[in-house]
């Protein structure tokens, strides 16, 4: 009842403006229909497939026209941009790259990316070099985005050790290398392969393992835990092969790094680190990191490692948060974060003291966005189940599933051969997103996405807690709060809150960063310092010791799909396009579209379903994208694909 109350009030408050708005809307709707009617089949399809039509009345005809133009021109523009920009400061890039994405919604972003086709960007800043690759599978509409960040942990250390030397030019080579690394990306299909997915947005974020670490370990003479091969990937990660490949390609760099490290290595005291932390930060922000001598104290490494993790996570978060500019921003933000983290790291380092960690300077994120078509939930499941089964098979795996707020999450973690893999799968009812569509609710949809993501991380943390021993107790506490924060101010998120969560998982051993973060975030400083010492390269079996893992993989799947239960299951574009279409002629008997209850006008495009019922194309297409039955007779539109669709 309260609801009605408020409604009434608001209603009376602005009847005028509302009426005007409605009138405008009606005008726009008319224009919309006209616009659609005048579109060629191709254009119509183009716009529909890219969700540019929105809903009638939502945007003006001009806007529609602009969109059409944009998308037509889009591909070319995009192609130009993609060129790799090596050596540029990432910070700068983000801005430039932002332009393409004007919308806010995830869908917008996805569409943009999709249109963009395959692009690669590289750059580096400070001690980090990054490379972003986006790939679109035109056929399936799958989109994959991967981001590699390599962090020269050395710099931090180095900087710490010798600040004056920052200037040394490490960047260029690194940047280049990174660029060189561009690997032939395995099409998302790898992941999706088995499933005949038709168009989907699947987001998979996987930080990739970094060889560097491994290398370093060996060099260092540290007990290598089944290092090089990232076998772990297979279990959880969608495209295992890819990871390996990458690792390989990467090797050159790592090695180099390694050598450097070794060279620079000297005992560094924790105290120093702390003091330096700030400096480091500054340096990193400046950009030039040097290969200068760095006293690679285990602690230092640990901290750096932590940082990296943070980065990876963070970037993920960012991407989610700001889908539209994801590509560009991801990188920069991550870096920023990193720099920020630097501080934290410094602090951590102090706390951790004993922690010994040599961490991979490279972070790989793979983001896959896939829209799971309504009928395909089985396939979706297969992803999850595959993940699950794999993880179960391996010795050290954890699986955590939950269903909350209509989202289904699966989180699993596995560890093997020194590689730890996290896979988080989140199913998001597509309608939550599409509801927002291009319009008003966008922010809501985004928020739910973000929340989703954050929650996912939270669970990650949760998992960690559950399995990791002692040190984690505080973690649990942190996570929720962090999440909360993150949710509250998604924009702000990057740095503080999420970061905390982020690092935690990797750090399971209780070594480090976590502590710091804790402090930062909440002041919950339960420091797990002691444990740090034990972080040693240990074979896969010891889950508790993160430090032992040379590789860390995070895989995040965002499966945007219709809910299995309530949500209807629709047809694919292809299926819809296969239905016959015609123009309305005056002689036709049935004159009204029963979806919009509007009479057909000369020249209207109608689509005829197998049951002979006809509708406006744009009306029925929208319905069929989520449902598979005729709005009048409820007969299944696709006989073969009947599944449970018939009600």
């Amino acid at each position, binding site marked *: 009842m309260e609801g*009605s109350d408020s409604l009434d009030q608001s209603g009376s408050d602005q009847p005028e403006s509302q009426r005007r708005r409605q009138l405008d809307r009606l005008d726009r709707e008319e224009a919309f229909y006209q616009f659609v009617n005048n579109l060629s089949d191709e254009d119509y399809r183009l716009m529909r497939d890219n969700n540019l039509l929105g809903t009638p009345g939502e945007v003006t005809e001009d806007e529609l026209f602009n969109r059409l133009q944009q998308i037509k021109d889009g591909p070319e523009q995009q192609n130009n941009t993609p060129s790799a920009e090596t050596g540029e400061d990432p910070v700068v890039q983000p801005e430039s790259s932002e332009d393409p994405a004007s919308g806010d919604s995830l869908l917008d972003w996805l569409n943009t990316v999709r249109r963009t086709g395959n692009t690669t960007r590289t750059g580096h800043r400070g001690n980090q070099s990054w490379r972003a690759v986006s790939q679109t599978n035109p056929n399936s509409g799958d989109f994959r985005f991967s981001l590699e960040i390599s962090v020269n942990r050395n710099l931090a250390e180095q900087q710490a050790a010798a600040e004056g030397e920052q200037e040394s030019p490490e960047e260029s080579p690194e940047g280049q290398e990174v660029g060189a690394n561009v690997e032939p990306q395995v099409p998302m299909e790898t992941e999706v392969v088995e499933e005949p997915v038709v168009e989907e947005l699947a987001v998979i974020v996987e930080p990739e393992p970094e060889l560097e670490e491994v290398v370093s370990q060996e060099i260092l003479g540290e007990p290598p835990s089944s290092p090089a091969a990232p076998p772990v990937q297979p279990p959880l990660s969608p495209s295992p092969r890819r990871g390996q490949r990458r690792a390989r390609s990467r090797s050159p760099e790592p090695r180099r790094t390694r050598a450097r490290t070794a060279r620079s290595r000297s005992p560094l005291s924790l105290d120093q680190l702390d003091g330096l932390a700030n400096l480091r930060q500054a340096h990193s922000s400046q950009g030039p990191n040097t290969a200068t001598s760095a006293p690679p104290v285990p602690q230092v490494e640990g901290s750096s490692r932590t940082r990296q993790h943070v980065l990876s996570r963070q970037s993920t978060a960012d991407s989610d948060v700001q889908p539209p500019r994801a590509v560009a921003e991801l990188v920069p933000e991550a870096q920023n974060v990193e720099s920020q983290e630097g501080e934290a790291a410094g602090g951590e380092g102090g706390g951790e003291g004993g922690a010994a960690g040599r961490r991979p300077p490279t972070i790989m994120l793979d983001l896959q966005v896939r829209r799971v078509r309504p009928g395909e939930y089985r396939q979706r499941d297969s992803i999850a189940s595959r993940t699950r089964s794999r993880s179960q098979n391996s010795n050290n795996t954890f699986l955590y599933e939950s269903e909350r707020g209509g989202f289904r999450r699966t989180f699993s973690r596995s560890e093997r051969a020194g590689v730890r893999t996290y896979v988080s799968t989140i199913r998001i009812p597509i309608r939550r997103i599409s509801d927002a569509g291009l319009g008003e609710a966008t922010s809501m949809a985004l928020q739910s996405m973000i929340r989703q993501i954050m929650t996912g991380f939270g669970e990650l943390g949760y998992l960690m807690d559950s399995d990791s021993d002692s040190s984690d107790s505080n973690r649990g506490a942190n996570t929720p709060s962090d999440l909360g924060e993150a949710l509250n101010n998604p924009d702000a998120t990057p740095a503080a809150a999420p970061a905390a969560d982020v690092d935690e998982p990797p750090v399971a051993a209780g070594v480090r960063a976590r502590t710091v973060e804790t402090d930062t975030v909440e002041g919950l400083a339960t420091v797990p310092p002691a444990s740090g010492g034990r972080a040693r390269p240990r074979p896969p079996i010891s889950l508790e010791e993160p430090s032992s893992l040379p590789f860390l993989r995070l895989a995040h799947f965002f499966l945007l799909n219709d809910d299995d239960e309530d949500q209807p299951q629709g047809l694919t574009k292809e299926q819809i396009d296969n239905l016959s279409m015609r123009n309305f002629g005056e002689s036709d008997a049935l004159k009204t579209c029963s979806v919009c209850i509007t009479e057909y006008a000369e020249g209207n495009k109608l689509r005829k379903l197998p049951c002979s019922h006809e509708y406006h194309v744009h009306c029925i297409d929208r319905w069929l994208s989520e*449902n598979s039955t005729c709005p009048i007779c409820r007969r299944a539109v696709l006989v073969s694909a009947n599944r449970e669709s018939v009600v």
Partner: protein
Amino acid sequence: MQRASRLKRELQMLSTEPPPGITCWQTEERIDDLRAQIVGGSGTPYEGGLFSLEIKVPERYPFEPPKIRFLTPIYHPNIDNSGRICHDALKLPPKGAWKPSLNISTVLSSIHLLMAEPNPDDPLMADISSEFKYNKQLFMEKARKWTQEHAVQKNTGVMEGNKENTPDQKASSRKREALSAQQEAEEPAKKT
């Protein structure tokens, strides 16, 4: 917003040729918040009552069903204490049977029908439903009593204008909740 143009047409139709026993109108200027009244069918325990309903039209209408609930307390196996209606036309497939070719008028009609013929096999209120099935006499009595108490008395007020009647509805719905709670409390006693 297909919704706007469609609703415009629907409202026109509702005012020009309303389904029997049903009236529906816009609240204020809001296009997404409608009110309706259904006259209790003769021969049903709701006879003589006038039941108010709230209709929220979702953004995605007609691709999503309207959200309809009773404002007037009603004793019915498929309508719960807060007025929510268990009716397949109000849900999306595959669970439900909503389809864009339905409209507010048809949905209201089917609710009208549901009032006359409850569906105890898909109950929202389990106890009312079993009562309906196994002790129809009692069910009828109670339903009539509720109708008398909630749907009949404010008959006139409702007719006069929805504005005045809003608070009334609120009160009655509160009453309904209280009443149902009380009734729930009584229920076990009766059974034993």
